[in-house]
């Protein structure tokens, strides 16, 4: 790996290198399975899984160290489309996607699927409106584009502010997730786990910047997708659902609808007294709300997540690393393909778990069984002990009703191997996958913030004379500082994981979507318009979030705190268009620059080292 810069050899060998890596990982899993058979304890296997994978990532990060500016910021612009697609998929799929999504579908049914739709369709916008043009532009960061396109320090500075707020909200949740997983797998307190997780994250990114993050993210994608798919395939085949579970679970969905009626879903009174974070099932799985309000809530959430996808800098900057504009486009398609593999599996997983718990004809079913029998189950005991599951016999009949069983959504991914009776090695694998998902996203986010602060704020605004060595030292110092700040905030446990993740998308689309899109697609967009659009959209969205979440205001027509981008975006668009039209058009040089980025061939607008 050290010869990475020495020409095409490393790049040409990528399929072989990652093929061997995948093989090596599978051998490791097999070895763990053998150790389990030999009587090694479950705890030891969990520790080995998490520790082994982190050491591998850190090793890749170390081998990718660099002191060259374009390697540090854009991985030397030589990452092939398919590998960049894998890296983006790991960058994209966070702890929330990996651990929380299937659980969200389990509890939320159809309404929650808005996240699945929203977190995939945004890539159409990335490919058709943004990525190829930004690649042709040749910027290092998203504010780099905004600053150069609109001119002057203020647009650049506003871009940095929106980026930092959106990404920091997001990274805190990711460090929180690494802390949770590390704490459970390594049996250390959460507050220590958070700092341990941060250490792993920084080992991947400190020395090699974007280059190191790229090659660790590819490695992390491979681990996380294996960890997500293996249990689902195994369970599906073991339970006789069929070879490819994703294509055949329709009947299981229909069966759940029957069982919901059978168990009296919606007719039972809620039972009080469950521990924090635990829920009982209360929403039908497959039914969609038939009111205009239900449809409105679905599509507004989809809109915020999609336009947020196309505005999140840690995703956009991945497409700055491809060798060409064409490769940037192809890479978006591959990213979506790799993301799709996990996202279309999540609803299948939620369905199987739900069926296993609800169906009294299956050995695994618990609803409608005697409470004494259910409490004797190993997985119920284990997860009750750590506060993830709870049984309250409200009517004292000794039979478990639907409204008497409480659990946390996270169980759907974390405990399903145990519910289905798979060996412990699978649970260790799942922990390693969750860790990979959270670490890879945290890495991308931290790098996006640190790069914007070091390149746009420090180098472009504060000290344009700074020499390369100093620039890269500042970049690393910032990475460390921001990571520590994120870990500190995470250790305070302020927000639930999901709330914070959705907010990042809303912040990003409120402030950045229209300034980026119109900067490419509307030559008339000028500096004054961009300033008004960024500041106005961001402030309007933030104000609304504050009022709804903390100020006690009633949401307007169902636009709750998860959807505040619906307020920010129109403000941003209208201000940007109106102010641009009221002020002079951009100069000829800027307009020529816009013409230039619309054409794939030719040199990038900004030099390879700027």
């Amino acid at each position: 790996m050290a010869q990475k810069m020495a020409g095409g050899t490393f790049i040409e060998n990528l399929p072989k290198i990652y093929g061997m890596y995948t093989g090596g990982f599978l051998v490791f899993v097999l070895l763990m399975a053998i150790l389990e058979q030999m009587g090694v304890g479950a705890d030891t296997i969990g520790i080995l899984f998490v520790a082994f994978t982190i050491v591998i990532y850190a090793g890749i990060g170390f081998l990718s160290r660099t002191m060259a500016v374009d390697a540090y910021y854009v991985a030397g612009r030589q990452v092939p489309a398919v590998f960049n697609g894998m890296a983006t998929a790991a960058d994209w799929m966070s702890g929330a996607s990996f651990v929380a999504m299937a659980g969200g579908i389990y509890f939320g049914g159809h309404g929650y699927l808005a996240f699945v739709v929203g977190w995939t369709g945004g890539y159409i916008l990335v490919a058709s409106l943004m990525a190829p043009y930004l690649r042709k532009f040749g910027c290092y960061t998203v504010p780099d584009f905004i600053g150069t396109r609109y001119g002057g320090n203020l647009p650049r500075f506003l871009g940095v502010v929106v980026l930092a707020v959106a990404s920091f909200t997001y990274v805190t949740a990711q460090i929180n997730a690494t802390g949770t997983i590390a704490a459970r797998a390594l049996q250390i307190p959460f507050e220590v786990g958070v700092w341990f997780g941060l250490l792993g994250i920084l080992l991947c990114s400190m020395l090699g910047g974007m280059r190191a993050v790229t090659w660790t993210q590819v490695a992390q994608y491979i681990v996380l997708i294996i960890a997500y798919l293996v249990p689902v395939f195994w369970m599906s085949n073991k339970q006789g659902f069929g070879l490819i579970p994703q294509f055949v679970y329709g009947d299981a969905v229909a069966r759940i609808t029957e069982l919901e009626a059978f168990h009296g879903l919606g007719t039972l009174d809620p039972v009080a007294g469950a521990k924090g974070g635990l829920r009982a099932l209360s929403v039908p799985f497959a039914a969609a709300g038939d009111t205009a309000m239900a449809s409105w809530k679905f599509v507004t959430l989809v809109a915020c997540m999609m336009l947020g996808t196309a505005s999140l800098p840690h995703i956009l900057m991945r497409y700055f690393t491809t060798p060409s504009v064409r490769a940037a486009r192809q890479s978006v398609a591959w990213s979506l393909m790799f993301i799709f593999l996990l996202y279309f599996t999540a609803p299948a997983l939620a369905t199987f778990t739900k069926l296993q718990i609800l169906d009294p004809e299956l050995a695994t079913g618990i609803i409608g069984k005697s409470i004494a029998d259910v409490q004797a189950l190993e997985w119920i005991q284990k997860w009750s002990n750590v506060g993830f599951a709870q049984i309250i016999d409200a009517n004292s009949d000794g039979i478990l009703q639907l409204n008497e069983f409480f659990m946390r959504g996270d169980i759907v991914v974390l405990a399903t191997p145990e519910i289905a009776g798979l060996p412990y090695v699978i649970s260790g694998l799942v922990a390693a996958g969750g860790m990979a998902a959270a670490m890879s996203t945290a890495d991308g986010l931290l790098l996006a913030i640190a790069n914007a602060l070091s390149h746009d704020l420090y180098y472009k605004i504060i000290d344009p004379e700074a020499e390369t060595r100093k620039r890269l030292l500042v970049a690393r110092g910032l990475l460390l500082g921001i990571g520590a700040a994120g870990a500190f905030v995470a250790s305070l446990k302020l927000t639930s994981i999901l709330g914070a993740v959705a907010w990042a998308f809303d912040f990003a689309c409120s402030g950045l979507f229209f300034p980026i899109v119109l900067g490419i697609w509307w030559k008339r967009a000028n500096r004054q318009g961009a300033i008004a659009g960024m500041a106005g959209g961001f402030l309007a969205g933030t104000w609304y979030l504050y009022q709804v979440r903390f100020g006690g205001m009633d949401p307007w027509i169902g636009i709750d705190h998860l959807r505040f981008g619906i307020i920010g975006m129109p403000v941003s668009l209208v201000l940007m268009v109106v102010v641009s039209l009221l002020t002079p058009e951009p100069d000829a040089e800027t307009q020529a620059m816009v013409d230039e980025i619309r054409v794939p061939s030719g040199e990038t607008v900004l030099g390879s080292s700027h």
Partner: protein
Amino acid sequence: MDTSKREEHWRRTKSLMIVTLTIWFIFSFVVHWFAADLNSVNFFGWPLGFYMAAQGSEIVFVLTLFWFVKAQDKIDRDCDLAEED
């Protein structure tokens, strides 16, 4: 560089963008707005509204994107504005 080629390139790029985003809009919003109605249709066991949210839209997105990449590349080549391979 030939400006008429550039104009043709941008005109065709814009049309492709509009077609792509129309597909995107239908499968992101229109289909899900009518989810409750679609649910009365049985699609290989799934209620169709649920299926479209869980799998259908996502499959369409992936296919659309690979198609878009190919179509845009053809526009670039036709107009002699593609990068060298």
